[in-house]
Structures are given as C-alpha cells and as structure tokens.
C-alpha cells in the first residue's frame, strides 16, 4: 500500500493532480446544482410578483 501510494517517488506531483481534478469535478457539480436552484428561486419570486400585481 505505501509502495503504491508513493507512486515510484512521483507522489508529490501525482496526488495533487488527482486531488485538484476531483475538487474541480465536485465543485462543478455543486455550482451547477446551485445555479439551477437559484434559477428556480428567481422564477418563483417573479411569479409571486406577477400574482401580487394582478
């Protein structure tokens, strides 16, 4: 296991690469979902305003 983790001495370059990629993958999911949620909230707000107008 430690042998595998050391990646033939390349671990200081390899693991940060994988971690960064994972981080960006997760953040993209998070931000995409948040943007959809915000769009829905925005629409709800707008519909409420329209209803209160009429």
């Amino acid at each position, binding site marked *: 296991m430690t042998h595998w983790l050391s990646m*033939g*001495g*390349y671990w200081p*370059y390899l693991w940060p690469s994988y971690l960064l*990629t994972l981080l960006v993958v997760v953040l993209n999911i998070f931000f995409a979902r948040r*943007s959809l949620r915000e*769009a829905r909230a925005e*629409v709800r707000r707008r519909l409420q305003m329209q209803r209160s107008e009429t």
Partner: protein
Amino acid sequence: MNWVWFHKLGSPPHFYRLAGKMLPWFAWPALLLCVGGTYGGLVLAPADYQQGDGFRILYVHAPAAWLSVMVYSAMAVYAAVGLIWRINVAHALAASCAAIGASFTVVALVTGSLWGRPMWGTYWEWDPRLTSELVLLFLYLGYMGLRSAIDDTARADRASAVLAIVGAVNVPIIHYSVTWWNSLHQAPSVMKFGKPTMPASMLIPLLMMLLGFTLYFVAIMLVRARGEVLRRERNAHWIAAAAEET
C-alpha cells in the same frame, strides 16, 4: 430530411423536461467510467518504461485538456446555432459551457505543470500544448467577462456568441502559431499522447477516462442549461410547475 426534432429541441419546455430525463443516462455512466478508469490507470496499468509512475498524471491531464478544447468547440457551435436560428435553448447551452470549460482548462494547466516538474525539472516550460492551453484560458475569461459586462441577457447571449465564433476560428490558428514558434526555439516536448505503441492496459483506462469526462461534462451542462432556460423564459406558464420542483 425531417427537422421536427430540431424545432422540438428548441422549444424550452420540451428541452427542460428532456434534459431532466436524460441527466441520469449521462451521470451514472460517467461515474462508472471515471471510477473504472481511475482504478485502471492507477492500479492496473503498468508503469511507463521511460517515465515510471509519473505518466499516470496522463489519466487526469489528458481528459481535462480534451474537455477544455471540446467544450470551447461545443460552445461555439451552440452560439452559432443560437445566433443564426435565434434559438434561446442554444444560447442557454452556450452560457452553461463557459464556466465548465474554463475550470478544466485550469486543471489541464496545473496538472500539466505538475507533470512537467519531474519531466523537465521545472514547473513551467513554454511547451506549445501548455501555451495554447493558457491562451485558451484567456479566451474563456474574455468570453465570461463580456457576458457579465452586459446586463440584458438577450444582448449578452448574442454578443458573446459573436465572440465565441471569432474565438473558435482563432483557436486552430493560435495553436498552429504557438507550435510553430515553439519548434524554432525548443526541442520537441516530452508529452506525447496517443502513442500508437501504447499497450492496451494503458490505453483502455485512458479511453474510459476520456469518455467518462465527456459524459460528465454533458451531465453538468444539462443541469446548468435547465437553469439558464428558466432564466430566459419570461412569461410561459410551464415554468410555474418547473419552479416548484426542488
């Protein structure tokens, strides 16, 4: 030729529903392929005879670099479709691409330079691939900057569409010029992808990662595009139901 599907896809409620239904069909295969590809790349694939275990950075660097270029092309195509046929759904798709593409361009740059450290002995080498990647990042940032500088969504859509198309015409020229410039000053780069001699145990995880990242991008884009479609739809009745979903 039957163009009904094209017009149907351009109808926001249809797209919104379809995107919601298609999402799992992209998301789950993407997850499986990426997990499998990572396992294959980190464990099953043998160490490279020249670069040892360091070459395994390839399994994240190559998909990120592929996405950075592919997403820009997709964005330009959506932009052109939106501009020519005035389809709002296409503009919504283009708008969802930029942030994803830019983030993977950053990943490609950082993993490229982390890979470069053991190979070149320095974090930054003016390698043609990395330099083009850097210019591509500037193109993404310009696109996002222009979009955020215009308040009116419809105008922002059209203006940024023009920029995306101009940029897409330029990307191959930039890449060619940077490669040409580099060949004058430097020895060829150590990073060569798609070596035909690559054994299957190395190649298959790479292909899995490339496909997995592509499906992942489509999934993320669909989620974002659903939101962008809602933002662009002003008075339709269908959004009332869509807004109540959580």
